[in-house]
């Protein structure tokens, strides 16, 4: 039992130490340009991430588009300042999930799924600022040390329990759950520092709405699968992040402050820059298995940034993929609308042709497929399309 008391005291002490350091205001370390990691732990983490970056750099999962990358770097620079942003090296990862990350060494990954789900520079700036805040606050290092400390204590507690034949499961659980609450605190701190960055940037703060949309997307998928909708305000004990609802509330409060909405949100520029690679951003979502969520995301962009022929084609493809008879009719309508634009992508005519043939409108279908081949003679599927045209 003496073991347990000693450990409980040690834990209480750790708790106090945490509380004491948390109450201190975070001051940005002076920016020196080329920070070098210090100490075994930090240098070790940097080494791991340097190796990781080496392998990711040449990976086929990276979307190699210098123009887009420079555009994203520009948004980060406007958000966190031109002196700091050069510490980040941005890689665009072909991944449909809503995510971005920044490692301690400045290795930043932005998923195409994130670019598909935000609709202005200001919204993107909020997520980039959040990741940059993790970087600046050195959260990876803190988390690494927290987990090591916690699991070390856990090991000793379990051994002490075994030796003294005492049930320590409650204490063990609380140690494990502490790791998650530590992570949630990190996330909240990163949100708050991100908000501070945005306030000193030319962008208006549009952070809260992202989280309400994430909830709605999740609910759209849940409804489709006849699952119970979840709208939790309090996080579960093993959540690594605050809940979407929680984040919405405290960020909305910050956004309501005076002056927080001043500035241009950069939506039209964002639309122009991302339209260029729209199929790349949405194809994984379209091909995925979450129809309602994907449709929610595509509709969101259409409603916010307008429906152009590219986006209509994307939505048409989504419905054509699901392929119920009613979906084909819906998809055909989207393709029809898209093909009214002379500059529409050739895939719009392909979609129109394929859906029309399946519905039974053979003449319309064949004309559209002819158009597709004329516009894209070297299409990968040209041979199979020609077969459809033969009879």
């Amino acid at each position, binding site marked *: 039992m003496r073991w347990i008391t000693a450990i409980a005291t040690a834990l209480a002490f750790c708790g106090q130490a945490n509380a004491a350091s948390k109450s201190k205001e975070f001051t940005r370390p002076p920016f020196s340009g080329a920070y070098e*990691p210090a100490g*075994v*732990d930090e*240098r*070790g*983490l*940097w*080494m*791991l991430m340097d190796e990781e970056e080496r*392998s990711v*750099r*040449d*990976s*086929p999962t990276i979307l190699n588009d210098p123009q887009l990358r420079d555009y994203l770097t520009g948004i980060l620079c406007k958000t966190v300042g031109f002196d700091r942003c050069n510490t980040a090296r941005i890689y665009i990862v072909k991944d449909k999930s809503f995510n971005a*990350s920044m*490692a301690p060494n400045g290795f930043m990954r932005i998923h195409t799924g994130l670019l598909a789900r935000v609709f202005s520079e200001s919204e993107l700036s909020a997520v980039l600022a959040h990741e940059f805040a993790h970087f600046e606050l050195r959260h*990876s290092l803190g*988390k*690494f040390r927290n*987990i*090591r400390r916690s*699991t*070390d204590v*856990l*090991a*000793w507690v*379990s*051994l002490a329990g*075994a*030796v003294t034949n005492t049930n320590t499961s409650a204490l063990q659980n609380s140690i*494990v759950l502490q*790791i998650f609450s530590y*992570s949630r605190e990190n996330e909240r701190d990163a949100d708050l520092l991100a908000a501070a960055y945005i306030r000193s940037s030319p962008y208006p703060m549009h952070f809260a709405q992202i989280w309400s949309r994430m909830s709605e997307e999740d609910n759209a998928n849940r409804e489709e699968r006849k699952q119970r909708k979840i709208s939790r305000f309090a996080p579960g004990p093993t959540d*690594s992040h605050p809940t979407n609802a929680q984040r919405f509330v405290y960020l909305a409060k910050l956004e309501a402050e005076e002056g927080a909405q001043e500035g241009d949100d950069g939506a039209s520029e964002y639309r122009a820059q991302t339209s260029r690679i729209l199929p790349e951003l949405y194809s994984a979502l379209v091909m995925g298995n979450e129809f309602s969520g994907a449709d929610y995301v595509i509709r969101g962009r259409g409603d916010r940034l307008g429906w152009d022929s590219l986006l209509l084609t994307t939505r048409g493809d989504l419905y054509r993929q699901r392929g119920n008879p009613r979906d084909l009719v819906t998809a055909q309508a989207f393709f029809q609308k898209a093909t009214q634009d002379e500059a529409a992508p050739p895939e719009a005519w392909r979609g129109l042709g394929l859906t029309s043939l399946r519905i039974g409108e053979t003449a319309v279908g064949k004309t559209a497929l002819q158009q597709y081949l004329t516009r894209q003679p070297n299409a990968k599927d040209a041979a199979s399309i020609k077969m459809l045209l033969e009879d």
Partner: protein
Amino acid sequence: MMQRFLQALALILAISASPAIAQEKGAVRPGFSAEQLVGQKVLVFRPTVWVGEQSTAGMPEPNADWTAQSRDLLDAELRKQRQGLGVEFIDEPDSYGDDAKLVAQYRSLFTTVAGSVMVYQFFPGNRLPTRKNKPFEWSMGSEISRLGDRTGARYGLFVSTEDQYGSTGRKVFQFLAAGLVGVGVQSGVHTGYAGLVDLKTGELVWLNADGQMGGDVRNSEGMQKRVAQLLEDFPTIAKRPVSAK
């Protein structure tokens, strides 16, 4: 990042007793002989090196200095070994663009294939139905010849080592766990493998893997022992230099 920490945590929580499993360590492809190697160029891919400590609870703690030092020692030791092996080693050249992508993809593929060999061939109790009683025949596909064409090498050598030295806390924990409750706790992880691939056919001609390697990779004597273990059974007719085994 978080996910990896949680995975590590899950592993630790499982408080693994030492997973010492009797396992085959290496194999040479049937029909392959050392004569085929004589005078050939071998492309040495940048080795994978990870050196650090193991926390009391078993969490890996990377150490940048040890890793950098170990990488240098490994390069030097491999250089020393080349004469004894009767082959010519060439280092992986710096590459960018499509070449770099090609190298990166084959590096990943090798890691996957070698992992499969270790899990499904070297451990007899775990053989897949399709691998049962099958000879050591694994291939990365003949497309790999693009690497051979570009570098002029006939074979490619991959080397990988991972060392987690038990921290003082881990050693004390190991001692107490054994003494007080009789539970075996492993302190330290020392694994490594090396493989040779035919850059014309893509065939894996030799693989040597060991889950419990010797030699302290942080000094040159230890590295000499480690490399000797990594290259154990390397098909060669030339006499090998005396190792500190």
